[in-house]
């Protein structure tokens, strides 16, 4: 496990502008879980990870890794990265080009200070690590003669060889091509579950975050905007930023007419009539809100949708065939609505259509 309390780190950007890279962040997760720090570039996710690793020195806050306080600015505690017992995989893989595959993986054991590893033990552990990432047989290769995917696996083997208390991953898949990335994503998830190692994963790729995480922390401007399971983050975003950053969303402007606390429902008056919505963040009657609905949750029909569904009408303005799905743009009068539909039913451009969506899939967000 690890816990971060009130972490603060500022940088001085060109022009002497002080940037709050990490602005009072608290975060933690239980042993064996995988948490993803997700956000656009410059949101503070990588800085948080680097503070956790000890590669950055925070101005304020406390960090505990597996019951050891590794950083506490109030008491002047700062454990250097070498003594934190962590494994880390960098975006660039950072494979040492002057060593063989074997020596790359063996390095953490050779410099270890908590115990001495015999040669036999080093060999045994390195081979086991390489096997784990399916790189057995490559030991004697110079590290420069590996493909991107192999370097990636090697970086994982090196990160895991010491059996670290916590594994830190800084966008480890972003340099791979799309197909390999998906394959590695699955392997990574299996490996992490099998080893039961607490893992912090930094990415700007929302689909990676949804696929891998036990928990996601969405970052923006140095703050955590929302935390939750992938389902919660996707289904109940608490802000327009989260709804927009994770997946894609349609937004309709409206005003809250009525809040039914018991049902956890709000009725929002929009240009298309009343919409019944759920909400992540509490809203009050009279408040201006945005109604967010995901394209794949909307249905298209030439007849009005059934009772209990929110509805609007419009005209098909664009149609993009993507194979497994078809994307439609519907001109709803006050803006365009994106709908992702199955390719079976066909609507042509200019056709008047009815759009329906379940209230459970509409989220009222404070605007």
């Amino acid at each position, binding site marked *: 496990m690890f816990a971060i309390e009130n972490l603060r780190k500022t940088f*001085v950007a060109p022009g002497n502008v002080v940037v709050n890279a990490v602005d009072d962040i608290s975060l933690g997760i239980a042993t064996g879980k995988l948490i993803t720090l997700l956000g656009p570039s410059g949101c503070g996710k990588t800085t948080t990870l680097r503070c956790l*690793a*000890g*590669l950055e020195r925070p101005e304020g806050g406390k960090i505990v890794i597996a019951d050891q306080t590794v950083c506490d600015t109030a008491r*002047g505690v700062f454990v*250097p*990265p*070498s*003594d*934190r*017992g*962590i*494994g*880390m995989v*960098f*975006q*660039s893989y*950072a494979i*040492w*080009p*002057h060593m063989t595959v074997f020596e790359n993986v063996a*390095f*953490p054991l050779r*410099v*270890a*200070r908590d115990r001495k590893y015999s040669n036999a033990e080093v060999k045994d552990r390195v081979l086991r690590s390489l096997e784990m990432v399916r790189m057995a047989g490559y030991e004697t290769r*110079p590290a*420069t*003669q*590996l*493909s991107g995917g*192999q370097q990636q696996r090697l*970086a994982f083997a*090196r990160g895991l060889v*010491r059996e670290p208390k916590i594994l*830190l991953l800084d966008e480890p898949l972003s340099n791979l091509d799309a197909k390999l990335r998906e394959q590695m994503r699955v392997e990574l998830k299996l490996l992490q579950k099998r080893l039961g190692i607490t893992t912090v994963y930094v990415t700007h790729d929302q689909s990676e975050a949804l696929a891998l995480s036990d928990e996601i922390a969405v970052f923006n401007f140095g703050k955590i905007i929302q935390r939750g399971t992938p389902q919660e983050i996707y289904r109940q975003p608490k802000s327009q930023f989260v709804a927009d950053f994770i997946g894609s969303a349609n937004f309709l402007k409206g005003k809250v007419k009525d809040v039914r606390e018991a049902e956890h429902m709000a009725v929002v008056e929009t240009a298309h009539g009343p919409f019944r919505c759920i909400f992540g963040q509490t809203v009050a009657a009279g408040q201006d809100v945005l109604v967010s609905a995901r394209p794949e949750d909307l249905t298209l029909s030439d007849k009005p949708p059934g009772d209990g569904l929110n509805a609007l009408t419009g005209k098909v303005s664009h149609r993009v065939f993507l194979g497994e799905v078809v994307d439609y743009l519907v001109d709803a009068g006050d803006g365009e609505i994106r709908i992702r539909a199955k390719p079976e039913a066909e609507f042509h451009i200019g056709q008047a259509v009815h759009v329906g969506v379940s209230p459970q899939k509409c989220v009222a967000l404070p605007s």
Partner: protein
Amino acid sequence: MERNGQGALARAVAVVIRPRNLALIACVIVAGWLVFVPLAALFYTAFTEDTGFGPGPASLSNFVQAYSSWHIVRLFGNSLIFATGTAVVTLLLGGLVAFVVERTDAPLGPLFHSLALLSFAIPGLLTAMAWIFVLSPNIGWVNALMKQWFGLSEAPFSIYSMGGMIWALASHYFPLAYLALGPVLRVLDVRLEEAALVSGARYWQVMPKITLPLLRPAILSTTLLLFMLGMSSYEVPRLIGRPARIDVFTTEIQAATQNAPPEFGISSALGMTLLFICVVAVFFYRRATRNAEAFATITGKGYMPTRIKLRKWRWPVALGVLFMFFLALGLPLMTLVWQSFFRNLAQPFIGSASPFTWENYAFILHYPIFLDAVKTSVSLAAMSATLVVALTFVMAWIALRSAPKSGWLLDSIAFTPIAMPHVIVGAAVLFAYLMLPIPVYNTIWILLIAYVTLYLPYGMRFISGGLTQIHKELEEVAEVSGARMRQVFFMILLPLLAPVLLAAWIYIFVLAVRELGASVFLIGPGTHVLGTISLTMWEEGGSYGAVSALGVIQIIPLIVIVAGLRWLELRVQRRSEAAAAKAQAG
């Protein structure tokens, strides 16, 4: 309140005594001492009265004395004409070679590149000497040959003229201009030129309208660099300019310290002007190189060199360039080698009185001062190369990695000597250690101090260049893996950077062995270096044969070293290319 104050103080102390910060402070002190103490001594000497027993009260008398005669006008004129002329001629020659090698399909490109690098092994003093053997009105064999062929009564060329000085220096520096302009021409995005062609421009319109304007920052910066080298040149003005009574700042600054009594005040007052000109040139140089990036002629991707097809002119053009190399480098060198086998003056193609002999070499190799100077020069060069590499390694690492916020400070300190001509460093170091109670005067240590100061910028440039090639994460992942700073340094950084460190070491070693401009100030009765004994032997009438043999003996090992460096560089390059190709295939 008081408690808070103490807490803040304790925290500040804790921050300062972190090992990285201690290293930063140590570097600032050492490098700052090397650079600014001599400069301060120079300023102090210039702005105080020269009592003959060291500096007296503050005064401008040195300036009045140095700048009040008409002589100063000639000094300015000579220096500026010499430096500008050298820059222009060098740029034209070097630019021509760069264009042929990089933008046409003329053969022999790699040979020219290697020749250019090898030229760097030849000490400037010996080039000047060799040109005198070739083009002196009295003893120059080309002149003698011309007179004989065309029945002239007067020598057609004279090396002892402004033109001769410019030619002697330009022939030595043009490979440098080629090496500076070549890469720029190579990476210039051809598509920018092609876009002009497609837009309807004729081929002859593209050069002046597109190519040259794109190259302007590179041409400007190279010109400034060459101008500065011309301004700082000491060897050519000393050997050729002095007998011709063409004085420039460098020779005047040195001469003033040799007067009886020595006029340190005047020397440093003249030094102020030279320093000022060089600082201005460096300022504009750095601005030009910064703008060069803004021009972004380097796109990196999808670059496909299209070279001008010379067709039947391929070989004639290549041979023309080869002839130029022969004229500029081969001719003086071969003359020097030829002369070294004869006791008296021996003009090639013209009947020589004395017979072929090895005795000059035998003489030099048994000449005690020579052996002494070799020992001093080699050990000085090795020590200064080692010290500079070690110091700039730490400085570059701190500047780039550990304390990027204070990095500019180290960077500026290390680069300051770029604007300091060798004679300025020599004079300033001399004045400083005559005043300071540190007994290094008349020992090799004062030379070592000057050399380290002189070569700081070269070390810094090499090593920070190498360090930026090494991804920061390679070190960070080692730290995270449990390695201490020391282990990161020795197990990761040092092996990765070893080729760069070695190249920097060799480069500085060669420069230091060749050094003359600062050494002339700092040698004493007991210390000689190769440059100063060559100069003394030349000026004090050693036989032509012995002087030439002394030169050849210096040049040969230097050429071997530089060739070795080139070989090392090519090997590293090929290895990394091979590795990249294999990784692609794997």
